[in-house]
């Protein structure tokens, strides 16, 4: 994976390198001898201190300016990777978006990145512009000076987009703030739980309900484009996979075969196929349904339970759960079906595998010694890491950038309730997502367009 340096250098870097070498031959200091080499193998891992200057009102912005900077800060701090320096500690005030930044003032409070912005509103149109500055380098982060325009209604999305850009410029990986999460909103006692579908912003804001709670609904999943949702509904009296258009809320059952139940649906990466479990006569196997042709194919054929299928991002493989050995374990098979190869190896029971959007990891639920865990492993099952532990944690879903997982945590006992939590794949930053009431089965959308 990591072989000789030069061999795998991307083009851009190679070029930079070439330039560097060319320079070195010119620079007298360097001549032909390599300078002493010092290996630094120990650094620190702590949130990066950043400063977010209050966004400036450039006309009619009113509360929007303050609210947008607040959301940007909340997004960034919420990752656990940044620590915003309180505004009252700022030495210099940014009074005009385009005035020169006094980098020394920001260096003095150890802000490593400074975000400045301005907001203007005209009618129902709002314009947000911002810059992210590399304080110690005294420059604007490349590509981090942008402007967004839209309706005031979407002001939170604009704040999320600002934060996404800042996040990706600093960390080098994609953001995930401008995204939504579909989940099951719960109410009622444990033995008579009422459930209905709802969607919200990734941070719990802007909740909207998609169904009433007349029938049990379970485990919704977004399509790759975020415009449709698959879920399991008891609306017909039996569990059936249902496809809903998020815009119109139109919905239909995908399978009507009597004597069967279908559940655990998930889209293929191209959105054209749905893989799911079909149970008939006591046996559950995995099937694939082509949405355009209606063609149904059986991907597994075993007397055991095969469920919870999830495609690899390239669509070539499917990871799923099977209890063929007696306890549920995780397997990977070609997208065309097959027996699959077991990848989970530790003690305990494994379920709900979900392939990372980056393709490198598989998140899962593990049950062992009376506890539940959310964990990740490489796609060959190696390097298993457990990120959480509680009475009942289950059903991880990946943030669009593959860095964060959201899942359901349920407390025990008669008064037990479910709530949504998220955790960074490094195991840090475990936190609860604020929801109005109990909630379960989160599924993250892709980044919104």
């Amino acid at each position, binding site marked *: 994976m990591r072989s000789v340096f030069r061999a795998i250098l991307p083009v851009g870097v190679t070029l930079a390198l070439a330039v560097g070498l060319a320079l070195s031959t010119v620079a007298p200091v360097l001549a032909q001898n390599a300078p002493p080499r010092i290996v630094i193998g120990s650094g620190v891992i702590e949130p990066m201190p950043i400063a977010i200057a209050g966004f400036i009102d450039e006309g009619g912005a009113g509360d929007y300016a303050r609210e947008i900077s607040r959301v940007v800060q909340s997004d960034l701090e919420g990752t656990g990777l940044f620590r915003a320096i309180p505004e009252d500690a700022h030495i210099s005030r940014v009074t005009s978006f385009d005035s020169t930044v006094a980098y020394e003032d920001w260096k003095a409070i150890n802000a490593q990145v400074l975000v400045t912005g301005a907001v203007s509103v005209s009618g129902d149109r709002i314009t947000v512009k911002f810059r992210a500055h590399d304080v110690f380098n005294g420059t604007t982060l490349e590509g981090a000076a942008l402007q967004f325009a839209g309706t005031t209604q979407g002001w939170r999305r604009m704040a999320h987009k600002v934060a996404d850009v800042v996040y990706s410029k600093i960390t080098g990986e994609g953001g995930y703030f401008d995204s939504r999460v579909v989940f099951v909103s719960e109410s009622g006692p444990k033995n008579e739980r009422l459930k209905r579908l709802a969607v919200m912003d990734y941070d719990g804001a802007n909740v909207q309900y998609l169904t009433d709670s007349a029938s049990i609904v379970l485990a919704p999943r977004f399509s790759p484009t975020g415009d449709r949702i698959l879920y399991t509904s008891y609306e017909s009296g039996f569990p059936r996979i249902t496809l809903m258009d998020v815009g119109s809320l139109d919905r239909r059952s995908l399978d009507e075969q009597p004597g069967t139940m279908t559940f655990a649906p998930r889209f293929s990466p191209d959105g054209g196929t749905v893989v799911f479990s079909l*149970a008939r006569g*006591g046996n559950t196997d995995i099937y694939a349904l082509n949405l355009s042709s209606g063609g149904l194919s059986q991907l597994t054929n075993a007397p055991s*339970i095969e469920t919870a299928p999830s495609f690899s991002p390239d669509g070539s493989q499917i990871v799923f759960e099977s209890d063929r050995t007696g306890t549920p374990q995780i397997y990977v098979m070609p997208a065309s079906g097959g027996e699959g190869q077991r990848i989970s190896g530790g003690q305990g029971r494994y379920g709900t595998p979900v392939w990372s959007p980056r393709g490198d990891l598989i998140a899962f639920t593990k049950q062992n010694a009376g506890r539940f865990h959310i964990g990740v492993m490489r796609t060959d099952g190696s390097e298993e890491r457990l990120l959480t532990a509680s009475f009942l944690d289950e059903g991880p879903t990946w943030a669009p950038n593959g860095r964060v997982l959201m899942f359901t945590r349920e407390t025990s006992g008669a008064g037990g309730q479910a709530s949504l939590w998220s955790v960074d794949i490094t195991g840090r930053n475990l936190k609860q997502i604020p929801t109005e009431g109990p909630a379960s089965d989160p599924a993250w959308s892709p980044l919104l367009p």
Partner: protein
Amino acid sequence: MSFAVKSLLLVATLGLAACNNPDRYGAGGAGGAGGIGGAGGIDTTGLGDPNNPASIAYFNQRVGDRVLFAVDQSTLTPEGRQVLAGQAQWLMTNAGYAAIIEGHADEQGTREYNLALGERRAAAVQNFLISQGVTASRLRTISYGKERPLEVCSEEACYAKNRRAVTVLAAGAGV
């Protein structure tokens, strides 16, 4: 007697036990029309007198409408087989009833796996009843996974009662 009492308490707890809608655990039948013929919507069937061998009350209480399972298992226990033999007998005697067999699991498992497990339990019951002579077309199965526990505590005492398959009668259906 204690069994009968317990059954009654269960009935009271569920409140809707008399309803034979397959989605009887839903919040209502309005959205649940469909399903198998005659079983959709809300149809009310009198429980009848438990002393009347042809009543649903008799089936639920005297015959026993449920069997329990061990952890992760869908294998019928000897006691379970005995109960089911009685159910089969009753069903063959009372040909006017169809039945929906509900499979359930305890909360110690993931949602989707438990759905499959519940279905496997329900199917085990269904297969046994058929083997005893009950016509297959009178039986249907459904799984609720861990969605509808009977007991709500998080201890084995409750889990044991939640790992169950319940035979729910529907008058006039089937055929």
